[in-house]
């Protein structure tokens, strides 16, 4: 076992002639909050889908929680939590029913399920909402519920695909506080975003441009290395220097 939560070697995925992810090498340590940045269509979601075992790489390899992403995706799935950019829980079920469903899917027993729902709803303040129908909650709360469902089975690694899209700044700030608390408890958080201001909260981050990783490191080191005042500035600078002349489109 490599000791890294996530490790990829020349991970590549092609869709026909289009290379969505082009030989990326990423290493993420346990308990780290890793920001996986890039513009829309840069290949972030494709990379996450490969790490979660939803998509088979064209070439290259990788491990997640020490398991091979091609051959051992079943083992990986029990150890990760995934929250997609789109709200994807059942709007017609209550908050408690959604939580119970996900707990059962991950094999939590009755007692475990009860404890975890209790501690997750304490942690995220969902307690008073347990019997409310999910679809009637405001966005911010739906998103917290998504996080609760993804985290209910205490995964080693949380994949958050643009979790803060269309959320107001205060909720976003709260969300990052939650993420750091989880990281403090030893959960690795792999988060994609295109909000360049918030990713300063990450321990380390990578910037993906046209399927390749253009820069990787701690926010501070990256800014110093490229002489930029902010990650936002760095991102624009990298976009100018690294972009291919041909326009690319997402698959």
């Amino acid at each position, binding site marked *: 076992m490599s000791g890294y939560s996530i490790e990829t070697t020349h991970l590549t995925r092609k869709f026909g002639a289009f290379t969505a992810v082009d030989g990326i090498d990423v290493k993420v340590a346990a308990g780290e909050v890793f920001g996986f940045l890039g513009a829309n269509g840069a290949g972030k979601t494709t990379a996450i889908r490969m790490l979660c075992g939803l998509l088979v790489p064209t070439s290259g390899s990788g491990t997640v929680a020490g398991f091979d992403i091609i051959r051992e995706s079943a083992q990986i799935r029990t150890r990760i939590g995934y929250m997609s950019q789109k709200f994807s829980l059942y709007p017609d079920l209550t908050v408690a029913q959604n939580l119970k469903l996900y707990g*059962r899917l991950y094999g939590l027993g009755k007692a475990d399920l009860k404890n975890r729902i209790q501690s997750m709803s304490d942690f995220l303040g969902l307690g008073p909402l347990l019997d409310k129908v999910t679809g009637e909650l405001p966005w911010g709360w739906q998103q917290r519920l998504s996080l609760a469902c993804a985290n209910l089975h205490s995964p080693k690694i949380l994949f958050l695909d643009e979790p803060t899209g269309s959320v107001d700044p205060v909720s976003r700030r709260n969300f990052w506080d939650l993420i750091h608390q989880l990281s403090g408890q030893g959960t690795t958080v792999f988060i994609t975003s295109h909000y360049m201001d918030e990713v300063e909260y990450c321990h380390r981050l990578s910037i993906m441009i046209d399927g390749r990783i253009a820069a990787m490191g701690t926010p501070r080191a990256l800014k110093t290395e490229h002489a930029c005042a902010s990650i936002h500035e760095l991102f624009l600078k990298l976009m100018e220097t690294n972009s291919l002349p041909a326009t690319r489109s997402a698959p």
Partner: protein
Amino acid sequence: MNLRRLLAISRKEIRHILRDWQTLAVVLVMPVMMMFLYGYALNADAKDIPVMIEAPDLGPEVRTLIDKIDASQMFKVAGVIPVVDDAGELFKLYGIHALFRFPPGFSADLRRSGGAHAQVLIDGSDPNIGTMIRNAAEPMLLGATLQVMNIRQPKVLDLRSLVLYNPDQRSALFFVPGLMALILLMISALLTSIAITREKELGTMGQMLVSPLRPLEIIAGKIIPYIFLATLDGLLILVVGYLAFGVRIAGNPWLLGACSLVYVFTALSIGLMISTIAKRQQHAMFIALGATLMPTVLLSGFIFPVASMPIFLRTVSQVIPATYFLEIVRGIILKGVGLDVLWKPVAILAGEGALLTAISLRKFKVKL
């Protein structure tokens, strides 16, 4: 295959079904409603069709014939007119469906040479009624005329028909199997394909695929509640068929149940197939209606006999599961036959289901 995960999915699916009570009500009320609609609308005996008579000469023979027409169950004489100028006007004005015309000298012709001419004009705008009138008019008038003239027809051929399996030709025996084929297909193919595409639309399908769930567990878990719903509707049709229309099952009811489950399996495989193609619920609904319900109603032999179809449509009807299911249900309910006779349609249904399921599961995995 993990039973706990599968049951978690089923439990959730049942919640969706119960939460959406309007759909549930439609699913439970519709079969009963359709049975009563078919039961009364399909009644083949037309009664008291309004007709008129044109008779310039009202001799005793003609008068007797008019009385016979009026006394028949089928016709009701709305009026007798000596001379009709514009027959079309009569049809439009009085809403009659036929006009019997006895020319002047009809009675005299009958008496003299023993051969007279008459005419019947038939409203063909409703082909069913038109055909019925045409088939009934000649034998009825001929019989009445012979009676009037006291002629006994010499016996040349005595053909006696005896109808087996449905001696009274009751339409309930005909539509109960058809409705079973239709309703079971609707629940299994239409509702499941919608339920699966809904998860795609919601994004919950992706969420489940990153969990330890296997595709087979997701599908089986979602399908199980619909199998129960289909069973419930099947029973409902049989119970209402028995109580309201007196339809008894001549054969083994357990065999009927088992064969129905095979048919449900085939229908589910169609639903699965549709959900691998459709991206949206509406999309799934239109494919399901077009690809399953329409051919079932029109081509399975439910309403129109397969034997009278052109070869191309007959070939199509050979692929439709309902064609075989109808054969099975009619066989068990009406004839009381067993698996020794019905093994072939059962095997075809099972084979079609297995093939479609295999293809769909493959497509489901390839998508990943």
